């Protein structure tokens, strides 16, 4: 497939790996923000190509992992109403809430449906005028504009039985939150390529300057990730700290302006609880008041639902790169993909799940991630 196969090329991977080996003279700790990048690193065993001195730390860029427990409980509660059709991306179906998950809700008779696109939800709403169709809206800046588009389309075409349960989150506030942690040892960031495809990377200059840390916009295929790491180490070795773009075929500095406008027209930033981490100022999105009629939190009686995280789950420390999955005492024993304690073990790109799947249930370490 064009623009995929070239970036999974064995020869190119070896070339970049050789270059990284050549230029790395000191130990460096780099965080890849995005769960999709974590998934790719584990799936292609990319740590195998890096010198021992280079340590990769997994970031919190997994919107599934950071969706608050409370919101999942709200989604499950909503799905139990006989006149509600709960729609969601597949990613959220197995994430544990306080007592259940959407998949089990479906098994008990709730109408829970997987969709590929928020625009598909509008079709379901049109075909089921007697039902209330709710969409569990998760995702970063990459996904939020598409949800905004669906909300606007609903308004335009008079669909009045559609609403969203909003769990959108923003990346730059999360980076600032991580860099403010005491004892943080991250020296470079691989920024999330598809978030930047929408937002551009102008927001990262201030972060690079303030924390004196290189930020390299990076893609997701093996060649892209190694290129991002290479550019980060080049900067680190020469004492630089600016923003660089290693995903130029998809990302520009200003990003996709119409998509950004759509996002800001429908949503506004809000302080948001990130599961396992805590409240991040300006770390989430909520529907603007003009779109209140599409806000499930305002349409349904959800105010009484409160939740507590299970003990034994150190998701927060893992998401902030303070611990690795195998440093969790529950990893692989009490907590597995079959019976996960927290979201990073369930989400296809959660660090714990990636580590478990690709490093085996015997906790064998393939790649030293």
């Amino acid at each position, binding site marked *: *497939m064009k623009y995929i196969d070239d970036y999974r090329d064995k020869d190119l991977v070896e070339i970049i790996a050789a270059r990284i080996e050549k230029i790395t003279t000191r130990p460096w700790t780099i965080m890849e923000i995005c769960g999709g990048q974590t998934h790719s690193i584990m799936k292609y065993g990319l740590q*195998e190509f890096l010198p021992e001195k280079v340590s990769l730390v997994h970031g919190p860029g997994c919107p599934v992992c950071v969706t608050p427990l409370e919101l999942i409980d709200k989604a499950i509660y909503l799905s139990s109403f006989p006149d509600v059709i709960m729609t969601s991306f*597949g990613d959220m179906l197995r994430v544990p809430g306080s007592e259940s998950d959407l998949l089990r809700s479906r098994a008990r008779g709730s109408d829970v449906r997987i969709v*590929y696109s928020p625009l598909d939800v509008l079709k379901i709403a049109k075909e089921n005028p007697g039902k209330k169709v709710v969409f569990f809206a998760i995702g970063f800046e990459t996904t939020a504009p598409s949800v905004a588009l669906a909300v606007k389309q609903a308004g335009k075409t008079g669909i009045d039985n559609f609403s969203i349960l909003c769990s959108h989150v923003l990346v730059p506030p999360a980076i600032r939150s991580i860099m403010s942690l005491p004892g943080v040892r991250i020296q470079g960031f691989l920024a999330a390529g598809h978030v930047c495809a929408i937002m551009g990377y102008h927001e990262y200059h201030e972060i690079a300057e303030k924390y004196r840390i290189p930020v390299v916009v990076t893609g997701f295929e093996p060649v892209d990730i190694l290129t991002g790491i290479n550019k980060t180490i080049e900067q680190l070795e020469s004492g630089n700290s600016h923003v660089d773009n290693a995903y130029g075929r998809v990302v520009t500095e200003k990003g996709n302006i119409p998509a950004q406008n759509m996002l800001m027209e429908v949503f506004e930033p809000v302080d948001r609880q990130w599961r396992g981490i805590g409240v991040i100022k300006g770390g989430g999105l909520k529907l603007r008041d003009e779109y209140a009629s599409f806000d499930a939190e305002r349409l349904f009686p959800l105010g009484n639902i409160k939740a507590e995280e299970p003990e034994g789950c150190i998701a927060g420390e893992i998401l902030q790169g303070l611990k690795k999955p195998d440093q969790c005492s529950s990893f692989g024993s009490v907590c597995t993909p*079959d*019976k996960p304690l927290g979201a990073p073990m369930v989400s296809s790109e959660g660090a714990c799940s990636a580590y478990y799947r690709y490093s085996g*249930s015997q906790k064998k370490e393939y*790649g030293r991630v």
Partner: protein
Amino acid sequence: MEESDINLVCPVPISEYDCVVIAHGGGGRMSEQLISKMFFSQFGNEYLNKAHDGAIIPFPGKKLAFTTDSYVVSPVFFPGGNIGELAVNGTVNDLVCCGARPLYISLAFIIEEGFLMNDLWKIVLSISGAAKKAHVRIVTGDTKVVEKGKGDKIYINTSGVGEIFPGLMISPDRCRPGDIIILNGTIADHGISILSKRQNLSFESGIISDTASLSEMMGEVFENCKGIHVLRDPTRGGLASSLNEIATSSGVGITIYEDAIPMNEDVKGACELMGFDPLYVANEGKILIFAPEKEAGRIIDIMKRHREGKDSVIIGKVTDEDNGIVKLKTLVGSTRIVDMISGEQLPRIC
């Protein structure tokens, strides 16, 4: 038996699941747990516990293969076939995976009230065609109709009986370090063809199911190669699940090569779009053959003379390292583990 002798406590921890979920039928770890903790623990025996595609049972003067299966596919009609031929081919292939010549099949229908007679007729024609092609006879059956809403259009249950080819000893615990692994063609076709017709996830493609009977091709292989150790048809749970099961049953390590595994370009595109790993997607009409390396050339030559085997290729080998674990040499040259999937694969956006 006294009531106190009966263990009334359900062995599958209720705190985990108080009802059956879809993942229990997915062919992954949850399926395996349900089957071993609940079913095998109650009525297991030396035949059932092998957990093979069928049972090889002694019978006066002969060795028989005996298998059973149920077909609940939705949609009932999918690109490349329907539930009818799926049922016949699936049963035939399970017998083939025991090293048997398939002979007789039983067929039971559970039909939901309101199912169109025309659709039933199409399915019956497919069953008849598939049975003729596989040279099997349907010798007994049953038909039940349930009220509307109590079924999902049509379910088919089968069982099959075949005669083991003389000289063959096929069993999931028989593969040995040094064995090679042969696959007869492209992966993930069936699973993706079904997905392409599911509501909310549909896309346009030319992908069709690879459902097919393997009895003719494998019959010729069995006549000429007696050294085969293990056979498996990688259906639900895909290649990855079957390989993991065999690695565990035989107590060996398995290494497969990503660049050797054949895949259609369309199927690859669909997997990329949905975020699916093709190693876990269901196949039909496919077979994994574990045999000593010296037999590989002869086996592949025979297979390539048949339509179902024209893309036959060696995809990996059995080792004595990291027993019980399946490893993948990736496209980029690194190695990673291919674990058992826990539930079912769901489309993802992250």
